[in-house]
C-alpha cells in the first residue's frame, strides 16, 4: 500500500495523471466498440446463415411444385445442413392476390432466427418441427407432393414433416391412395402395422391419434380430426386429405383459402380460353360461376357445407367440360 501511494505521488508529480485518464477512457471505448462490433457481427452472420438456409430450402421445394404435372404423387427426403427449428406460417389472401406461405428457420433453442421467407407460388402444408441429426447424419425432411385437382390441376401441394416423425395409416384406407403410397415406399410412413411411437392415422374410425372421417363414403369429402381441431377436405385424389393430416390447422385453413383464391384467378384465364375457342367456332358449355361463388364462400368460412358445395361445383364443371364439343381443360 505504501509503495502504491508512493508511486501515485510520483505519477501526480510528473503530470502523468491526464495521460492515464485519457488512456483508460479511450481504452474502455475501444474495448466496448470491439466487443459490440464482434457481438453484432456474430448475430448478423447467424441471421445471414439461417436466411440463406431458408432460401435454399425454398429452392429445394421448387421441383415439388411442378412434379404434379407428371405424376400422381411424389416423395423425396430433403437434407438440410444444420439442426434447425422450422416454423411454417401462412398469410391469407388480402384482396385479389395469392397469399403466401412463410418459412422461418431458427436454431433449436430459438435464439438465432433467420429472416422469414415469403413464398407466393407454393402451398406448403406442415407443422412447426425440429429437424435433428440422427446417427450423426444431417437432418432430413420428408417431402411429398400431390396435385390438387378441383377439377383441373389448380396447383401442387407440398407436405413436409421431419424424418424423425413416423406415421402409420390404418383402417379403411382408400385403395387408390394405398397403392400410390405403397409405390413410393416412404420409410417413415407405414401402411400395415403400427409401432408404439408412430402417429396413428385411422381411416373410418376414431381410435387413432388422427382420425379421418368420410362424408361421402369414399373419402372424397370428409374431415380430419386431430387434437381438438377438425379440418375439412374434398377432392378426387385425396390431396387435401393428406394436407390436413400433415398440417397444422392454421396453415391448412389458410392454404385452402389461398387455393380457392388461385381457382378464382385461373377461372379468368379459362374464361378467356373459352372466348378464344368460341371465336374459332368451337363452343363450350362450361359455366365457371358456380365454382367461383363456391370458392368465394370457402374463403369466407370453411365448414362441412362450404367444402361440400365447393366439391359439387367442381364436379359440375368437370362433367360439363367433358360433355362440351371443345374442352377448356
Amino acid at each position, binding site marked *: 500500500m505504501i509503495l502504491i501511494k508512493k508511486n501515485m505521488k510520483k505519477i501526480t508529480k510528473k503530470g502523468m495523471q491526464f495521460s492515464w485518464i485519457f488512456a483508460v477512457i479511450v481504452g474502455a471505448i475501444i474495448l466496448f466498440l470491439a466487443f459490440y462490433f464482434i457481438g453484432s457481427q456474430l448475430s448478423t452472420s447467424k441471421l445471414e446463415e439461417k436466411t440463406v438456409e431458408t432460401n435454399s430450402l425454398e*429452392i429445394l421445394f421448387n*421441383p415439388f411444385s411442378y412434379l404434379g404435372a407428371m405424376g400422381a404423387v411424389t416423395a423425396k427426403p430433403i437434407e438440410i445442413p444444420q439442426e434447425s427449428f422450422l416454423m411454417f406460417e401462412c398469410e391469407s389472401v388480402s384482396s385479389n392476390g395469392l397469399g*403466401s406461405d412463410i418459412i422461418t428457420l431458427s436454431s433449436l433453442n430459438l435464439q438465432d432466427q433467420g429472416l422469414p421467407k415469403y*413464398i407466393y407460388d407454393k402451398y406448403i402444408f406442415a407443422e412447426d418441427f425440429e429437424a435433428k441429426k440422427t446417427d450423426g447424419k444431417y437432418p432430413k425432411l420428408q417431402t411429398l407432393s400431390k396435385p390438387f385437382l378441383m377439377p383441373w*390441376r*389448380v396447383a401442387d401441394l407440398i407436405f413436409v414433416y421431419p424424418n424423425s416423425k413416423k406415421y402409420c395409416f390404418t383402417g379403411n384406407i382408400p385403395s387408390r391412395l394405398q397403392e400410390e403410397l405403397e409405390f413410393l415406399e416412404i420409410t417413415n410412413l407405414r401402411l400395415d402395422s403400427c409401432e408404439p411411437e408412430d402417429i396413428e392415422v385411422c381411416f373410418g374410425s376414431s381410435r387413432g391419434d388422427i382420425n379421418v372421417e368420410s362424408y361421402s363414403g369414399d373419402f372424397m369429402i370428409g374431415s380430419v380430426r386431430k387434437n381438438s381441431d377438425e379440418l375439412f377436405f374434398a377432392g378426387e385424389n385425396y390431396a387435401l386429405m393428406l394436407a390436413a393430416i400433415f398440417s397444422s390447422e392454421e396453415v391448412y385453413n389458410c392454404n385452402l383459402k389461398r387455393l380457392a383464391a388461385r381457382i378464382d384467378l385461373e377461372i*379468368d384465364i379459362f374464361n378467356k380460353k373459352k372466348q*378464344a375457342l368460341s371465336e374459332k367456332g368451337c363452343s363450350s358449355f362450361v359455366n365457371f360461376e358456380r365454382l367461383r361463388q363456391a370458392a368465394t364462400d370457402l374463403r369466407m368460412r370453411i365448414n362441412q357445407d362450404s367444402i361440400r358445395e365447393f366439391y359439387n361445383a367442381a364436379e359440375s364443371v368437370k362433367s360439363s367440360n367433358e360433355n362440351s364439343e371443345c374442352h377448356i381443360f
Partner: protein
Amino acid sequence: MKKIRKKGQFKIQEMAFVLLAVVLLFGLVFLFFARFQLGQVQDVATKTREERAITLVRAVASMPELRCSKSITRIGESSCLDLDKVVAFHENENIRMNYKKMWRSSFVSKIAVQEVYPPGETYWIYKEEVENERGYAGFIPLCSEDNCVIARLLVSVKTGNSE
C-alpha cells in the same frame, strides 16, 4: 501559472486530435468492412436468385395457368404451353397483374414466350423494366387445338441491387 495553463491547453488539443484520429480510423475500418460484407451478401443473394431462376423455367412451364391441358393433348397434361392461355396473359393486363406479387417475390423481371420455329410473335407473361437482369431460356412446344410451334420460354431475373 501561465506556462502550466498553456501546457494544459496543449494537452487538451492533443487529446482532441488523437480522439478525432482514432474515431476516423475506426470509421474507415468499419466502412471498409461494411462494404466488404455488403458485397458478400449481394453475391449470395445473386447466387440464390440464379439458382432459383434455373428451376423457375421449368416451374413456369408447368404452371396450370400456362400448361397444355387435356383439351389439347387428349391424354392428359403434357409438357407444352397452351397458346390460348399465353395469349390471355399477353392481352390482359389484369391477369398479368394478378401474378405480379408471385414474380416479384422470386425477383423475376420478365417472362416471355417467343415463337422461334416458325418465327412469329413474342407474348409477354410478365414484364418489368429493370437495369440489371439475367435471362434463362428453354425450348418448349406452344400449342393450340390444331397445331404446335416451337417456342422459347424466357425467364429474366434481377441481378445485383437493381430494382
